[in-house]
């Protein structure tokens, strides 16, 4: 065993491993070009359905929970964009239970590279970019309609929203994968937080019961993905009832999420027993 690497070197090595594995899967998927495009567009269209539902709802009303269609489209776009980016980067982790069951996690663990990087890049699927592109289109439309007065702080909050939202959703994927070390066939638990959470974030917080919203602030802090920054960006009053600085606290929430997910992942890896033992 060689000398332990510095955290910086370790991160660099992990990113390199991620790039290599992801690149390999990328080349593999592009070998079937027609299938790649069909599934990419299909991915975009499938997630677009959620927006079609919202659009159909707004055929029958002008506001939902007190928010207009462009405002809800902003929530939809940011929710889909951040979930889509997290899914693109580490979404493959939700197949971990499968890999634990068939024993192929062993192959990953014996390789001299970070397991999280390898498993995150496993079956890297660029077709998942379909959701990202589609969300960007809806977000672009909403921003045109909303005509926000862009200031430097607002641009900064917008950039932080995308970055921290992706980290928060990514952390949920990692924590969910860690859980699959213990419950190998419970991958769907993760869906209720990731895809379920993203569905919740597409709608104004005022639509939901207070306890549910509180859970999204203090429990799994999904409210920091887009609800809270949106209140600042769109200049709306707070229907959630939290301190005002929470609107800018997304980096803190992202940091907490990432730390918790990292600890959960370590606990998961430590507890791993290969199938058959």
């Amino acid at each position, binding site marked *: 065993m060689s000398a332990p690497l510095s955290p910086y070197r370790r991160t660099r090595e992990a990113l390199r491993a991620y790039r290599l594995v992801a690149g390999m899967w990328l080349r593999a998927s592009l070998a079937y070009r027609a299938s790649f495009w069909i599934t990419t567009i299909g991915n975009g269209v499938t997630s677009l359905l959620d927006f*079609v539902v919202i659009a159909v709802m707004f055929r029958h009303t002008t506001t939902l929970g007190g928010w207009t269609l462009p405002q809800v489209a902003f929530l939809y776009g940011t929710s889909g964009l951040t979930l889509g980016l997290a899914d693109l980067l580490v979404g493959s982790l939700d197949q971990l239970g499968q890999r634990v069951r068939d024993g192929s996690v062993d192959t990953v663990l014996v390789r001299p590279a970070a397991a999280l990087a390898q498993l995150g890049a496993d079956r890297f699927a660029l077709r998942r970019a379909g959701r990202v592109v589609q969300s960007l289109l809806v977000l672009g439309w909403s921003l045109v309609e909303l005509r926000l007065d862009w200031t430097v702080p607002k641009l900064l909050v917008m950039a932080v929203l995308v970055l921290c939202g992706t980290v928060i959703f990514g952390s949920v994927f990692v924590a969910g994968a860690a859980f699959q070390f213990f419950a190998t066939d*419970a991958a769907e638990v993760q869906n*209720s937080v990731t895809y379920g959470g993203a569905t919740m974030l597409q709608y104004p917080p005022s639509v939901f019961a207070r306890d*549910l919203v509180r859970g999204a602030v203090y429990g799994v802090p999904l409210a920091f993905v887009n609800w809270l920054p949106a209140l600042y960006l769109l200049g709306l009053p707070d229907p959630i009832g939290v301190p005002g600085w929470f609107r800018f606290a997304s980096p803190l929430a992202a940091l907490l999420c990432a730390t918790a997910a990292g600890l959960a992942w370590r606990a998961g890896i430590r507890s791993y027993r290969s199938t058959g033992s």
Partner: protein
Amino acid sequence: MRLYAAVARSSFRRYAGYRAATWAGVLTNTVFGFFIAYTYQALWQVRPHLGGYDLSAALTYVWLGQALLMPVAAMGGGVQDDIEARIVNGDIAVDLYRPVDQQVWWLAADLGRSCYHLLSRGIVPMLVGSLFFHLRMPAGGPATQALTWAGALLSVGLAVVVSFLLRYLAALTGFWLMDPRGVRQVTVVLGMFFSGFLLPLSLLPTALAAVAQHLPWAAMVQIPLDVFLQRRTGAALAAGLLLQLGWAGVLLGAGQLLQRAVVRKVVVQGG
């Protein structure tokens, strides 16, 4: 007949084996049920009686939809996963040797799966939903109620059959396309939207709604839910069941034709 009953039973048992997966799935259906119910509530508070549903009918629609999602496999899957995998890895050749009708064999397996999902992922979310929202159960005298329950159960059964026949056709295209994912994605999109799972079809623009009510996907979610909510009674109930039965017949025939073509195709490849 006894063979197919045995297939259905073992399929039921196979799915019942995954305890953690079942509970995870129940959780997912319940969580989604809450989120969608709240959004419906926000909409129906602005527009009571939208699309012919009052608030409690609309909320019942949401939870019944979650209860039927897995049994009916409105998002694809079920035995479709197995058939597609066997087509891609070639194991399907062994299936074709067997002296059984492939379509009926897989239908039996899917019915077994569906029964298990109805009992597990159907009932629990519905119970949780009824604790938090005012849901509507069939009303009227004992005879009316019994008729509604019987009609709804029959309609759910037909919904599963229609859904299976569509998924079977989609899976068989894998013999020609080699990669089933594209067709799968298209059918998922159509199924989610035109089944009425995401929104009652009566909320769509009028012309589209009129067409959608008669497509095979309406047989998967919209019709059974309307039967349960007693929006289809008497002649409308009969018409709904007949539409489901009609699509089942058409799709059954199409599946038979296609699987005959498949057998010829596989023999050509092998020779």
